């Protein structure tokens, strides 16, 4: 009987122990996370939110900070600014900059949003923050006439990186003039720590004049409708984050870019030349991709990219729809300083001569359509020579024979071969490099030898002699043959 009682007691304590273990297992599996709902988190305290001008962001939020009430004071300013050298544009801005000031809050925070429309502004404005769950993202509640201030409040119930923009009619024009920015809603506990954080936002601009046309440029409605921008830039103007305004980092640091795309129209293929994104928070949400070269950022969307910089250099930020980068301004810079790492990147190790088989360097393929038709007369020779010129020579020496200053010597009224057409023949069959003087101007370049037949050379030199203000004359295929075998007439280098 004593034994039975003992075993019962043991069974009981065992069951309790089992129950406790099971309970623990359940809570461990749960992790406590699914209990957290930012929509229900109560806020404590109240303070003014720190806003920053691009390319800077406010400091990361203390991971232990409870949800709080933040007051955001955002002023709309219409102001004239520089798009690029010699070109000004009337920007409509949140907080005086394009993109507008960066807002940083935490999920669970309550934001009291004050939108102030400066009394000197001409237009009514409002704001739609993509972080807001509610009518119009706040647009209806924040519709503000000049000289007025509106207030509304929202709770940040989803973490992520969100665009905000003006939504007053005509919406496309308000956005096209620069009324966009980013608001970061940090998850509870914050994002992984990095050494540097920067704020970059792409936008497309539509001006009456073409890219680079000087003066004050008004907004062009037709181009905006056709989605044909003149400028595609980071942070509101050409060179806003390049040259002296480049972003900076040191070798070994981790860099995070909060990248937005205000549009209004274009999608961005965001890439940093010479770097690979270690982490990409796709579309500014929770999902992370790794080892990404180029990430798509939708118009009205954003992404967060993290990468470690391992070697020094200037790393170019681009929209890889490449004509936008090199011809419309979608180009920024990240300058990284520090020690080299030759294993990761050596730089150029050597540059040596490469000789194709046959021993002749600097040759180009022969002119198109070289049927060996013989010229019957000087006039015919000139006509056939004209075809050679058009197909081969005019690309450099130009259709008017005037060449290009400092690069390609003129053939028009040329004193180079005026007294000795053999010099022209020699340049064509042997090539010509080194310093020469033509019509008083010094050229120091290299013309490749051309693979033309004797007939073709005779034709084109005769054409030259009788055009472009030159004195006239005729050259025969035999003459060409002679020059070919006797070598370069003018060795250059004078």
């Amino acid at each position: 009987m004593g034994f039975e009682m003992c075993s019962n007691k043991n069974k009981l304590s065992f069951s309790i122990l089992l129950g406790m273990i099971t309970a623990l297992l359940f809570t461990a599996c749960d992790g406590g996370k699914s209990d957290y709902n930012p929509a229900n988190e109560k806020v404590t305290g109240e303070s003014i939110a720190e806003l920053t001008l691009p390319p800077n962001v406010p400091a990361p939020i203390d991971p232990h900070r409870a949800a709080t009430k933040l007051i955001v004071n955002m002023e709309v300013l219409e102001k004239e600014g520089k798009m690029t050298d010699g070109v000004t544009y009337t920007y409509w801005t949140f907080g005086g900059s394009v993109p507008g000031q960066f807002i940083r809050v935490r999920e669970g925070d309550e934001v009291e949003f004050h939108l102030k429309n400066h009394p000197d502004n001409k237009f009514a404005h409002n704001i739609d923050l993509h972080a807001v769950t509610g009518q119009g993202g706040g647009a209806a509640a924040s519709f503000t006439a000049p000289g007025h201030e509106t207030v509304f409040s929202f709770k940040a119930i989803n973490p992520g990186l969100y665009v905000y923009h003006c939504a007053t009619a005509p919406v496309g024009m308000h956005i096209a003039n620069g009324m966009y920015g980013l608001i970061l809603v940090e998850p509870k506990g914050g994002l992984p720590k990095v050494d540097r954080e920067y704020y970059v936002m792409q936008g497309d601009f539509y001006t009456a004049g073409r890219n680079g046309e000087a003066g004050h440029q008004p907004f062009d409605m037709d181009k905006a409708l056709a989605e044909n921008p003149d400028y595609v830039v980071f942070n509101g103007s050409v060179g806003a984050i390049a040259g002296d305004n480049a972003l900076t980092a040191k070798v070994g640091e981790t860099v995070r870019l909060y990248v937005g795309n205000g549009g209004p129209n274009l999608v961005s293929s965001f890439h940093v030349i010479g770097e690979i994104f270690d982490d990409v928070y796709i579309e500014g949400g929770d999902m992370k991709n790794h080892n990404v070269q180029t990430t798509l950022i939708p118009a009205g969307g954003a992404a967060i990219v993290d990468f470690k910089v391992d070697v020094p250099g200037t790393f170019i930020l681009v929209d890889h729809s490449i004509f936008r980068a090199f011809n419309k301004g979608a180009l920024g810079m990240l300058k990284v300083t520090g020690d080299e790492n030759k294993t990761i990147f050596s730089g150029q190790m050597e540059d040596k001569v490469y000789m194709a088989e046959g021993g002749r360097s600097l040759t180009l393929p022969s002119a198109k359509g070289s049927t060996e038709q013989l010229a019957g007369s000087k006039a015919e020779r000139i006509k056939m020579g004209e075809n050679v010129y058009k197909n081969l020579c005019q690309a450099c020496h130009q259709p008017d024979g005037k060449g290009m200053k400092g690069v390609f010597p003129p053939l028009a009224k040329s004193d180079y071969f005026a007294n000795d057409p053999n010099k022209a023949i020699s340049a064509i069959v042997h090539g010509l490099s080194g310093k020469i003087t033509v019509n008083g101007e010094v050229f120091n370049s290299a013309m490749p030898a051309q693979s033309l037949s004797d007939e073709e050379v005779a034709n084109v030199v005769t054409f030259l002699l009788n055009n472009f203000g030159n004195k006239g004359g005729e050259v025969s295929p035999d003459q060409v043959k002679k020059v070919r075998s006797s070598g370069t007439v003018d060795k250059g280098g004078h």
Partner: protein
Amino acid sequence: MIRLHYILISIFLLVGCSVLLSEPPSKIEWISIPSGEFYPFFADTVKPITIDGFFISSTQITNSQFLRFVKSNPKWRRSKIKTIFAESSYLHYWESDTTLGINAPPNAPVVAVSWFAASAYCTWVGGRLPDMSEWEYVASASKNKKNAYNDESFSSTLLRMYEKLPKIPLPNVGEKFKNYYGVYDMHGLVWEWTRDFNSVIVSTDSREKTNQDGKLFCAAGSIGNVDPSNYSAFVRYSMWSSLQAKFCLRNLGFRCVKDI
């Protein structure tokens, strides 16, 4: 002899007093706008509406004209006006209740006046504020063409004028944009009050479809307006729908109309 003098002096005084007590000549030049057909921007159908003929003031009402009004009507002076009729920025750029000062050139348009004050002035001169359709009807005229609203170049020109709207102290009226009717500055100087300014866009979010009013509601892509690419019209209509009757804005003035 003395009696004659007394009579003469009395007559003189009587005439003088009647001149002083009656409404001073307003010096408003009224331009006749003949009746006609017009396609308002917010039309439900593509049918035009008929606008009856009316007179419109050739320019916006100026600081000096409004000064005469407040001198005769003290309850519309800055220090005396009821807050229900105008917010605190009413005539803030004037030097005092009855003096203009350097920020208010006499011939510049009067601004920072509420809809109530503007309406009262127009009543005082025997008229009223224009309806939106009347205002737009006159505003659709370019320099040489009666109705230039369908001209893309006109809409672009207007957008560019809006980008350059001047700041206080404002330039004089009647010196810049003169349209086909001979009416000045319908564009390019200040925004203007209308009698029914808030009747069209009910929603303050320019993208949503309203339930109450099926007319204009949206930016490009809306189906309630005739021409979604007419950005200059959107800009004006947005401006009007952001206002409340007691607002006093630095770039908002008015002109008056008179029925025939």
